[in-house]
């Protein structure tokens, strides 16, 4: 005979744990099933460092107020309007209670990390990072009596007319539950799925986080008639070191040096304005830019002047005494690269370099231009980092309402199915990204999903 629970939660990250804790606090008996082994529990949440929540005043850890309106303006700008306004505003309003609530669940914060001062007002940083944050949530869940099973993927769902009945775990065990919370992440680790919309380009993508977010639960829900939301090619993607492992390289493979140099593709040609805006505002477009280049690879080039101006990363840069030698090491056409660098150097108009403002160092008569922080690349040694698109998480998901209840296509809200986190991020993020919002989506909707799931299950 199978078991019956009040609330079954699929996943093991921020969204799942917030849901589980909230449901348990509301009196429900809760089972969490996590596909990954214990060490890898909480997929992408393990890699995070902060979350973005509205707050009225400066706090011990935040340098100033960040109002709901300002949050909304930021979201509107990064998504270029592709967001569900009602839901997004609701999430932002709820985010202001999130810091207090999640603190009560044992999560601790600290001032912004070295090298990230620009986020010090808007984003709350987890003391010890995302895995510390998760460890605290798991401890709290354990104390409250939430049961967690690791190495336990959901392999099938029984859904009748928008009503969840049971889930099959590991292909064998059948579990019934009164409510179901889907918090099993996006499908970024599923290269076959990525290829459906990106084509063979996806072969060259690197996955920054967990290999377990394969989107199986999302696929099952959509197949069972849940209404999807979002574009399957939309995702958070940045340019990361091409030498990073295929999966789970995490934060340390990121490179923050684009604005200090030029970026060329495998034909040794530039393709985008490297100095368009401050890096925190532009880093999230470079994944897509590189994905559109031949072989999905590019090279950030800079010289001795810039080496110490950005956060160090995991791998050392490729180093050479001349541009031609650098081209050789990178496997680029030396004459072509020398010409590209020569053209760039010739177009640079000197100004007073200051990377903390939109300075007046720019190129003239160059296409594409470099509009700020343009300095000649002429001081040996010369350096390069090879970069590839690094996929953080996908946006295609399940449509939900304010109660985090999933909607059935053409039917309306499901009676007992809820979703939170990456798996429904597309409701808020049609495109673009603002740092820290992934955790807000998971925390806010996770908590709501847990409360609503418990309300449905135990009244």
């Amino acid at each position: 005979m199978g078991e019956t629970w009040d609330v079954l939660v699929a996943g093991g990250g921020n969204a799942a744990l917030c849901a589980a804790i909230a449901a348990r606090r509301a009196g429900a008996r809760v089972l969490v099933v996590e596909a990954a082994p214990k060490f890898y529990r909480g997929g992408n949440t393990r890699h995070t460092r902060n979350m973005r929540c509205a707050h009225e005043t400066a706090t011990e850890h935040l340098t100033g107020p960040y109002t709901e309106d300002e949050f909304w303006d930021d979201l509107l700008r990064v998504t270029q309007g592709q967001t569900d306004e009602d839901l997004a505003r609701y999430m932002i309003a709820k985010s202001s209670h999130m810091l207090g609530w999640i603190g009560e669940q044992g999560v601790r914060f600290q001032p912004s990390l070295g090298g990230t001062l620009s986020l010090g007002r808007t984003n709350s940083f987890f003391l010890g990072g995302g895995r510390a944050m998760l460890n605290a949530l798991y401890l709290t869940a354990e104390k409250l009596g939430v049961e967690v099973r690791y190495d336990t993927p959901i392999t099938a769902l029984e859904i009748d007319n928008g009503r969840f009945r049971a889930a099959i775990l590991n292909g064998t065990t059948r579990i019934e539950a009164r409510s179901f919370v889907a918090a099993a992440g996006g499908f970024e680790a599923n290269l076959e799925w990525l290829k459906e919309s990106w084509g063979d380009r996806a072969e060259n993508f690197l996955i920054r986080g967990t290999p377990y977010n394969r989107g199986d639960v999302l696929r099952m829900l959509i197949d069972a008639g849940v209404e999807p939301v979002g574009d399957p090619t939309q995702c958070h993607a940045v340019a990361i070191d091409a030498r990073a492992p295929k999966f789970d390289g995490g934060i340390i493979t990121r490179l923050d040096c684009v604005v200090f140099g030029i970026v060329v593709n495998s034909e040794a040609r530039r393709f985008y304005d490297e100095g368009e805006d401050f890096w925190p505002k532009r880093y999230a477009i470079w994944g897509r830019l590189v994905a559109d280049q031949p072989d999905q690879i590019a090279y950030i080039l800079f010289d001795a002047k810039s080496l110490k101006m950005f956060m160090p990363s995991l791998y050392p840069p490729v180093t050479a005494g001349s541009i031609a030698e650098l081209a050789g090491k990178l496997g680029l056409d030396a004459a072509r690269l020398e010409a590209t660098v020569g053209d760039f150097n010739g177009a640079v108009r000197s100004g007073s370099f200051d990377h903390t403002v939109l300075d007046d160092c720019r190129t003239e008569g160059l296409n594409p231009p470099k509009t700020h922080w343009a300095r000649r690349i002429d001081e040996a040694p010369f350096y390069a980092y090879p970069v590839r698109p690094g996929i953080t998480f996908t946006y295609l998901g399940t449509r939900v309402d304010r109660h985090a209840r999933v909607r059935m296509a053409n039917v309306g809200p499901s009676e007992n199915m809820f979703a939170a986190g990456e798996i429904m991020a597309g409701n808020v993020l049609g495109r673009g990204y603002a740092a820290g919002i992934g955790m807000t989506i998971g925390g806010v909707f996770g908590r709501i999903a847990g409360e609503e799931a418990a309300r449905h299950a135990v009244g």
Partner: protein
Amino acid sequence: MQLADHHAEAERLMTICNACRYCEGLCAVFPAMEMRRSFGAGDLDYLANLCHGCGACYVDCQFSPPHEFEVNVPRTLATVRARSYRDHAWPGFLRSLFDHNGLAISLAAALGVAGFILGFVSWHQPAVLVEAHRDPSSFYALMPHEAMVTLFGTAFLLALVALAMGFRSFWRAAREQIPEPAGGGSLLQALRDAGTLRYLDGGGVGCYNEDERPTDNRRFYHHLTFYGFLLCFAATTSATLMHYLLDMPAPYAWYMPPKVLGTLGGLGLIVGPVGLFLARIRRDPELNDADCSGIDTAFIGMLFGTGLTGILLMLLRQTPAMGIMLALHLGFVLALFVTMPYSKFVHGIYRYAALVLYALERRRLGSKADRS
């Protein structure tokens, strides 16, 4: 310069951590690391001795094993730390005492004890060992006060010289990138940080030992050990002062300073090391360097032995066992002194030095620049 293996692994981790920085708020190691772009042997020795082994950065790290990056900061720094004790020891030919430290220190203790027993017996009649307790100034019947002072004074001075030389070597290496001169402020700050073991708290929740639950109380047991040791030291010093300055030789009544300090300190030196030892055997083996467990247990054993024999001596001083107990206790104390520069005792000195250097660096940290 080519780094040795243990330093090379620490350098690899520091490069990873410097790109990550998630642990920045947990302790002093990460902020100190962030002030560096390159890590030489001296820098790594410094960081290793700044690490208190609280384990927080291991349970919090998304890259710890089985992740392919295999980031294990507590263990790696424990290895570097143990090697730093050896590398900075003086004189150089005694460095190998660290290689089989448990054996070396047990031998020293055994030799110490045997030496005193033989000494007492050959100095007097063999019977004195079991009869001396009848004499009111019984200790000095077994060994004249002057002889005791000369022996222990010499041992202590030799140890001090060796410790000072070790400190000098460590200090020079560790301040490779810290040009500021040490001043009163940094010395005081380091005294506070050492006295409270500020960085043995896992960033605020308590330190980790067995698993990802911060339930450990090593800090409490270390306080018992550390302050117990200081109290014993104060007991001996007060007795010496009373003897020479006030002309009040032992024995002392229970309420006199040497007795009160010695009793409290002795108890600390029994309970503290037992607590530390139990914590050590329960510790997640991933957190420890297997090679340094000999150094640790030998030192724990010596402190425990010193405390236990001291308390037993006090309890049994009116009985025939007194002679043997005195030999045991003096043997342990002498061995403790003699082996200080070649035991884990040096951790107190190097850690204090590292905390001073960190206090100096912190002022620079005040102006943390945003690079992105």
